[in-house]
């Protein structure tokens, strides 16, 4: 309020604090229009998301019943059928994919974060980015040539390898980034106690980064769970309980894909149900991942 202390001279015009200077009104309007456009952009992003979720749940929830989770697929005129084999198949495929990709991905992440020259690491990081950018159908065709053709059979193993390739870049990047967040002081402390490099990493740096790596792993699994294209030429899908790692196996995404195009009401309903279960699986995994990170942040 120091301004009031200065005497206002008679001749000075009183400032217009209501309407402002000449172009103030147009500027205000322009500002509001821009703000409005931003709100529209937010709505345009949220509406499709909410619409998809609502529609999937509205259509899919009625399909969920005990039969859906416990029975095998049946002919189109059988009201008591389910996709139990697809649910189990998805879990099995994710299990195999994780068994392959977690050790490889975490190992590669450790290498990039802790070892390797800077030029070599740039190359590795670029390769990882390229791998995460490879279209998933390409991964499917690649694994078809690499695994399915030599084995002369579509198989759970081939599907698992394809999903592992989807998970791999996510795991490498999160492991690297989480290890980089571990303060150098932790490594120095271990080295100064006479720990060799590998003990320093495995016993001290990695445990500190573990919650973040687990989160990355869960998100990678969620991503892989939703993949269809890599499984088309590898796991193939079927209507029975799977009989082994070298046999074709069904997955929820495959069921959704194949049933959605069918003319029979019951199969289309099963397709919606599959979509709901997949969405819920991914939602729950993401929430678990968030919880794991939050507990870490709370510390």
């Amino acid at each position: 309020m120091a301004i009031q202390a200065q005497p206002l001279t008679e001749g000075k015009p009183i400032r217009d604090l209501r309407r402002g200077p000449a172009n103030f009104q147009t500027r205000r309007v322009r500002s509001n229009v821009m703000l409005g456009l931003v709100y529209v952009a937010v709505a345009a992003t949220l509406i499709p998301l909410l619409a998809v979720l609502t529609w999937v749940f509205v259509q899919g929830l009625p399909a969920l019943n005990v039969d859906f989770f416990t029975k095998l697929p049946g002919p189109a005129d059988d009201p008591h059928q389910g996709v139990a084999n697809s649910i189990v198949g998805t879990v099995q495929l994710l299990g195999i994919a994780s068994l392959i990709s977690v050790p490889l991905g975490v190992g590669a992440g450790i290498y990039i974060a802790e070892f390797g020259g800077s030029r070599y690491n740039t190359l590795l990081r670029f390769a990882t980015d390229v791998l995460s950018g490879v279209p998933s159908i390409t991964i499917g065709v690649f694994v078809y040539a690499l695994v399915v053709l030599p084995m002369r059979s579509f198989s759970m193993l081939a599907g698992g390898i394809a999903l592992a390739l989807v998970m791999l870049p996510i795991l490498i990047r999160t492991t690297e980034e989480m290890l980089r967040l571990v303060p150098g002081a932790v490594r120095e402390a271990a080295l100064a106690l006479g720990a060799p490099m590998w003990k320093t990493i495995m016993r001290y740096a990695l445990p500190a980064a573990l919650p973040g790596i687990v989160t990355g792993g869960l998100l990678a699994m969620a991503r892989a769970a939703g993949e269809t294209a890599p499984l088309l030429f590898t796991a193939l899908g079927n209507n029975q309980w799977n009989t082994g790692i070298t046999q074709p196996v069904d997955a929820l995404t495959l069921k959704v894909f194949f049933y959605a195009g069918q003319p029979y009401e019951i199969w289309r309903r099963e397709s919606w149900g599959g979509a709901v279960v997949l969405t819920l699986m991914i939602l729950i995994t993401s929430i678990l991942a968030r919880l794991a990170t939050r507990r870490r942040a709370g510390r």
Partner: protein
Amino acid sequence: MTPTEVEPTTIRQEANGTPLLRPLTINAAAEALPSTEAPALSVRDLQAWYGSFQALKGINIQIAPRQITALIGPSGCGKSTFLRCLNRMHEVIPGARATGEVLFEGQSIYAPGINPVLIRRHIGMVFQKANPFPTKSIFENVASGLRIQGAPKAMIAERVERSLHQAALWDEVKDKLHQPATSLSGGQQQRLCLARAVAVEPEIVLMDEPASALDPIATLKIEELMMQLKQHYTIIVVTHNMQQAARVSDTTGVFMVRPDRAGELVEVGPTRQIFTNPQDSRTEAYITGRIG
């Protein structure tokens, strides 16, 4: 170059067994030592680099056993770098390297074939900022060095307790040994790091400004600990705090920055002499607050 040439003479005299270093604060253990005891470390012509930048030039010093040697000097004069060269922690930084001779128990730790991991098991370190392992409990933090070195299980609990006693921390943590180390205060964490360093019974403990991040009371505790620990260990401490150096150390080394930005050791001698009758004009200027 002339002032630096003074100092190798000093060193050589020491090497011949004529002890120039007279401890200021004499404790029973130190006095009982034979005066001809070999130095705990003797450094000859040590050079250190960060990439192409030379951080240390031609350092020569002998470290007396079971004494506290303080290293003082203005910021950026290479005292911390020098300290890290003494247990080969310097080379952990990418691009950093060191040459020269650091004799520890008769062999140079920079000789070919020497495993730095084994050196660090005998020459421990306490850092400026307390760095307990965040994922480990208080007990496990102190035990970690023992576990790294594969100490028998039966020995660990006893050693942990003794180390915590030595670090004057036992009474404060004995009821919560299995809580995370990060639950301790800053001063307690630093004493925990001290306990962790002495748990493996090193010959030498290097301390890099161990109290600079602590309040005066916690600082006093650390200093009292150093006075006690020197009965068993050789302590080399880098400090910014000249009063601290004067209070705790027996010997003081003064580092200065050369015109080419490399650090050098300009003077080393009994702490009382350094602070009352410095031989080097730069030491005098630094002590009296004219530089640094």
